[in-house]
């Protein structure tokens, strides 16, 4: 088809941060297809230098208002790895519970606020008040619940206060466990309704096989907080070797670095996790996956949203299990850590290098700190999931455009926007990104 198409989306809406989509097709030939990331660098790694390892998590949580808990947990894990400190089983359970709330909150917002308007044929979440009244209320109810649980656990729903290196400064009492359990169990009908709604929506059809990367382990648990780095291309390396995965490189049109591993690009996030760890999902989550017709290996990136929905069921059920377990065994309040920067030297400090690798809503997040003998950070590196996905998104775009050249310009633009949104990119964190420019088709 000898057609000219020029797409220039500046900036893309319903993604976090600023990015532009540029597509240029001339005489039916794709000449330009890229995702410009136009956000300024954040310099968080620079800010960490000279700061105590015991305050790093309070600084890095500010990288993102959505993944604040994920950054906190990756930061703490890197710190503990550098210090050679292994947290208690109780601490690990509470951290998993915290991570589940962030996963739930972020996924639900992405599904309802950012993706549903496209699938329901409206421009934003606002018109849904009139047309999908119950859906709007359900979304708000679910979001509030996860915020409230997070609030009980770590002091507030964003930028946690009580989660620190070594454990928690405040631990939940029995009444807190009861309150969280009531709230989360009460949400099961809303979760079922969410799956039913999604099962009626039609995601765009598009296939591009790529390398899927996520945490993997040899245990029965769906790995989110801990594990090795694994991929569908057979990669299995320690989190310490994360640089062998990311192989970051610079491209002229993006202030965020791109990444690649075994082939030209790779994908992280809910779909990658599901492709690698499907068997370890909670049985109810597997039922949701069946309802949404998603199973490994799924190669349609638009179904990342469906994979997020499946993970919502998993995280809700796992949260309830953790809380029931804590309730049965009781929370040992003696494990509470004293607030501060380890002034009393309760935690032994030594020089070292540590890596944190945590699955956050958009994929695997790495924090790496080198600390001196006093626990001060000498060097820091944070590799954010969206940054790892950018290269893969562009490869998807390059495959998708020629397949939809028979469509109208506005349909092509919408398809490109939906594709990028499917990754739930957090451009501000990756450095920042999104806007579509058609330059001639």
């Amino acid at each position, binding site marked *: 088809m000898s057609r000219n198409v020029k797409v220039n989306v500046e900036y893309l809406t319903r993604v976090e941060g600023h990015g532009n989509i540029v597509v240029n097709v001339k005489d039916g030939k794709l000449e330009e297809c890229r995702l410009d990331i136009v956000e300024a660098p954040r310099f968080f790694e620079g800010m960490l230098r000279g700061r105590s390892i015991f305050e790093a998590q309070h600084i890095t949580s500010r990288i993102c208002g959505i993944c604040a808990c994920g950054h906190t947990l990756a930061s703490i894990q890197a710190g503990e790895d550098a210090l050679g400190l292994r947290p208690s089983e109780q601490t690990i359970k509470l951290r998993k519970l915290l991570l589940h709330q962030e996963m739930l909150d972020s996924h639900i917002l992405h599904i309802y606020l950012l993706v549903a308007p496209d699938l329901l044929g409206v421009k934003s979440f*606002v018109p849904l008040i009139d047309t999908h009244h119950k859906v709007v209320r359900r979304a708000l109810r679910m979001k509030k619940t996860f915020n409230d649980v997070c609030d009980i656990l770590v002091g507030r729903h964003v930028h946690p206060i009580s989660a620190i290196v070594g454990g928690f400064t405040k631990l939940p009492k029995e009444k807190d466990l009861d309150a969280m359990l009531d709230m989360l169990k009460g949400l099961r009908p809303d979760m079922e309704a969410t799956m039913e709604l999604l099962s009626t929506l039609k995601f765009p059809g598009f296939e591009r096989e790529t390398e899927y990367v996520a945490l993997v382990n040899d245990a029965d648990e769906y790995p989110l907080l801990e594990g090795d780095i694994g991929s569908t291309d057979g990669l299995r390396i320690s989190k310490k070797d994360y640089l062998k995965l990311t192989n970051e490189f610079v491209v002229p049109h993006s202030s965020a670095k791109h990444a690649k591993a075994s082939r030209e690009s790779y994908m992280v996030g809910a779909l990658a996790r599901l492709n690698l760890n499907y068997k370890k999902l909670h049985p109810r989550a597997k039922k949701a996956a069946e309802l949404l017709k998603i199973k490994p290996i799924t190669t349609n990136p638009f179904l990342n949203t469906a994979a997020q929905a499946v993970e919502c069921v998993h995280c809700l059920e796992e949260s309830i299990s953790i809380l029931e377990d804590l309730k049965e065994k009781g929370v040992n309040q003696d494990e509470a850590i004293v607030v501060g920067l380890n002034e009393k030297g309760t935690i032994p400090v030594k020089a070292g290098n540590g890596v944190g690798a945590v699955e956050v809503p958009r994929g695997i997040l790495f924090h790496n700190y080198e600390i001196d003998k006093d626990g001060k950070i000498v060097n820091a590196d944070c590799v954010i999931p969206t940054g790892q996905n950018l290269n893969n998104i562009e490869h998807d775009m390059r495959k998708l455009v020629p397949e939809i050249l028979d469509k109208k310009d506005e349909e092509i633009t919408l398809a490109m926007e939906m594709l990028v949104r499917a990754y739930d990119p957090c451009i501000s964190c990756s450095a920042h990104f999104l806007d579509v420019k058609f330059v001639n088709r």
Partner: protein
Amino acid sequence: MSNLLTAEIDDLLKPAAALTVIICVGNTLRSDDGVGPYIASYLSNSKLLAVIDAGYNPENFIGEAAGLKPGRIVIIDAADFGGKAGEVKVINEGDIPGASLSTHAIPLKVIYHILKEDTASEIKFIGIQPKEVRHGECLSPEVRAAADKIITKIKKEFTDA
């Protein structure tokens, strides 16, 4: 002066027959956007007044506000309506923005609609024109002066009620 309260706002900030709930909205880390929480921090609940500091996630306070069964709800937030810094204005329903400052924030329009459905209350939105909404923890002198007038007015009216 631009921050004089109009007669309409004056009336809104007087006690009504039933409870008035004032929902203060804003982010204290974004300069003048923090005017809502600033106002809330100086007010206390009384027989005819309940104050909610809803910060940057007002959607989480809809249930609390509706549960009080108020006769009137007044939402106070920074609003860029092209006025002079510190100007205070009642924002009409049709002018409440449908977009959010942040991608993952719930638009105020959605919150307004749900409050309207869940209560039989009169709902009004008072906007204060910000001078600056960049990162920062201080209010500009103009916006602080406007906020102080609102605080003084509410304290006077509701303390005596």
